[in-house]
């Protein structure tokens, strides 16, 4: 009874903390996202790179667009084209809403992926796709920012080489906030569902 005020305060704080925990467990609204929600766990979209038309662009140029960030390289004949083809189908399924989205294909092989090669590459998949390249240091900084990794594998006799790379697709909202992560295991329906929510009327820009 010597410190009633402190005791009260502690109890109040404890109740408050329990209340927070309870509200977190019993959300009134069900979690609307089907993909992994990364809000608050990944930094905002930020970069300064060269687009597939040879122009310097920054994340600010894509404000107002929902962006899908994917790391790949054009000499990847199997997994990267599959991902890009699937994103093309997602865009088609979104119909008109797709115009509010951009697919950002960031090359992890800037030595070979010139803007010209990237341009032909992304346009073969979808009109909403943009190819981005830059200095190896800038590319590495961007992959590190999103804890994505890539490794250049040992070269072959003809001088060609493969690049192992992270396969996730990071989704940012129109304010450049990281929102969702799609992995190759995620069904395409989930991405379509969540992009509908992010792009649809009434969604925050």
């Amino acid at each position, binding site marked *: 009874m010597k410190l009633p005020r402190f005791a009260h305060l502690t109890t109040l704080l404890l109740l408050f903390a329990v209340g927070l925990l309870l509200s977190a467990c019993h959300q009134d609204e069900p979690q609307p996202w089907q993909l992994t929600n990364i809000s608050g766990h990944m930094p905002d979209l930020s970069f300064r790179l060269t687009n597939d038309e040879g122009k310097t662009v920054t994340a600010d140029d894509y404000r107002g667009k929902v962006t899908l960030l994917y790391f790949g390289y*054009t*000499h*990847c*004949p*199997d*997994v990267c*084209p*599959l991902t*890009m*083809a*699937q994103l*093309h*189908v997602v865009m088609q399924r979104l119909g008109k809403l797709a115009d509010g989205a951009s697919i950002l294909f960031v090359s992890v092989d800037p030595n070979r992926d010139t803007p010209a*090669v990237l341009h*032909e*590459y992304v*346009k*073969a*998949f*979808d009109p909403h796709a943009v190819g981005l390249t830059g200095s190896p240091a800038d590319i590495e900084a961007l992959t590190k920012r999103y804890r994505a*990794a890539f*490794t250049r*594998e040992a070269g072959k006799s*003809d001088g*060609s080489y*493969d690049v*192992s*790379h*992270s*396969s*996730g697709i990071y989704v940012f909202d129109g304010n450049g906030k990281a929102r969702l992560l799609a*992995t*190759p295991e995620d069904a395409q329906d989930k991405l379509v569902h969540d992009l509908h929510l992010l792009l649809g009327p009434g969604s925050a820009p």
Partner: protein
Amino acid sequence: MPSRLLLLAIGLLPVGNLLAAQADHVTATEAWIRLLPARLPASGYVTLHNTGSSAATLVSAHSATYGSVMLHQSSMGSGGMSSMNAVAQLVIAPQGKVTLAPAGYHLMLEQVSRALTPGDSVDITLDFADGSHLPVHFLVRPANATDPQ
């Protein structure tokens, strides 16, 4: 008469031969190539059925259209890292099938020797361990093809 009998015997030979070449009891379906622009390496996909009673082992492939054809496998490692590796051989069990499909086994096609457009057909010959060959027509499809053809 003896010569006619001999002809008959030769005609029956492939059917009666218990040690038929591996390529003879493999059928290929859904063969297609994902065409990429700018002469970038492309991938060939095909489903192989072994209708025989012994295994067939695919060891390589070659084509007049590509200077280099390699048997590869894409795999997903820890942390969602995607990588490609060369595959020395691919065994198709008796009455079994092996599917070369996106994000798995594929023929990596490089050094294309002519301009290709979607709708073209490219011949690729599959080479089996016993030295037998299976020529297969691959349909060229656009980069963003996904649906089964």
